[in-house]
């Protein structure tokens, strides 16, 4: 199958192109207006994005800088700070303490005794 266009084909393509070009001029006014609106909406979206983008990137950089300063200047946490919750956890979960926790009357008595003296 030869895919080179013959003279007849080229002439046909030329005629078709002419008809298509002329038909573009026949697009009705309402459609032209809607196309213009679509174009302006696309460009407006770009303009809005480009107007907030410098502010957004500036804000992001400022936030990162503030975070970096905060982390840099914050004193290191005391070493036992992380151990305290673990101790508490062990107290709560050990077998003896679970048994003790079941004896609510004992805890009430202990609290009353502390308040009394």
């Amino acid at each position, binding site marked *: 199958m030869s895919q080179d266009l013959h003279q007849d084909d080229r002439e046909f393509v030329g005629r*078709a192109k002419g008809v298509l070009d002329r*038909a573009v001029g*026949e697009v009705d006014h309402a*459609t032209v207006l*809607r*196309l213009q609106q679509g*174009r302006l909406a*696309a*460009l407006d979206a770009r*303009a809005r994005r480009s107007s907030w983008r410098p502010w957004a990137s500036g804000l992001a950089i400022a936030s990162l800088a503030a975070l970096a300063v905060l982390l840099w200047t914050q004193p290191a946490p005391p070493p036992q700070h992380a151990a305290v919750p673990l101790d508490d956890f062990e107290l709560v979960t050990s077998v003896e303490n679970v048994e003790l926790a079941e004896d609510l009357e004992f805890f009430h008595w202990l609290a009353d005794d502390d308040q009394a003296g």
Partner: protein
Amino acid sequence: MALSRSLTPAHSGQCFLGGRISTLEETRALDRFLAGVERRAFRMAQIATGHDDEALDLVQEAMLKLVERYGTRDEAEWGPLFHRILQSKIRDWYRRTKVRSRWRLWLGRDEDGEEVGDPLAAIADTTTPTADHQLKIKEASSALDAALRTLPLRQQQAFLLRAWEELDVAQTAAAMGCSEGSVKTHYFRAIHTLRTLLGNHWP
């Protein structure tokens, strides 16, 4: 652009001002480009879909995507990129419509009186005659539209991009997302089918 270039670094705020002018120039260039292609794009989408509203939606989506994703690219690239986006949107629309048509058929809703169906079957003239002296042009155009709508989508795309938009084979292949060999085959078949359908005395 010329103004932004003429500003010297000594001017206070020149970077921001230059950026704004550059953006404004880009926006104007995009506006010019889109204004130049929008009607032809609409006609392509209209021929493919057979519906004015669908065609307008597809063109607007293509414009939005071009501006959003490729607005900063070199101006010479916009044409092929725009057609690539538009043809991709048309293909997606076509697939969605086919699936919808199958479901309608399966659900037995063909007799609902709705006219939405296979877009290739929608050969009816969608243009409304306005002036008598342009009747011949309209008839020629309607006949071509109808003939184009009988073509498989790939042949229709190849014909419109090659013959009307005058994209070269490589650009057409990029726009259609297929090989250059496929473009040649689709284009060749499209021309011969159209010539058969329209006859020797058209237009």
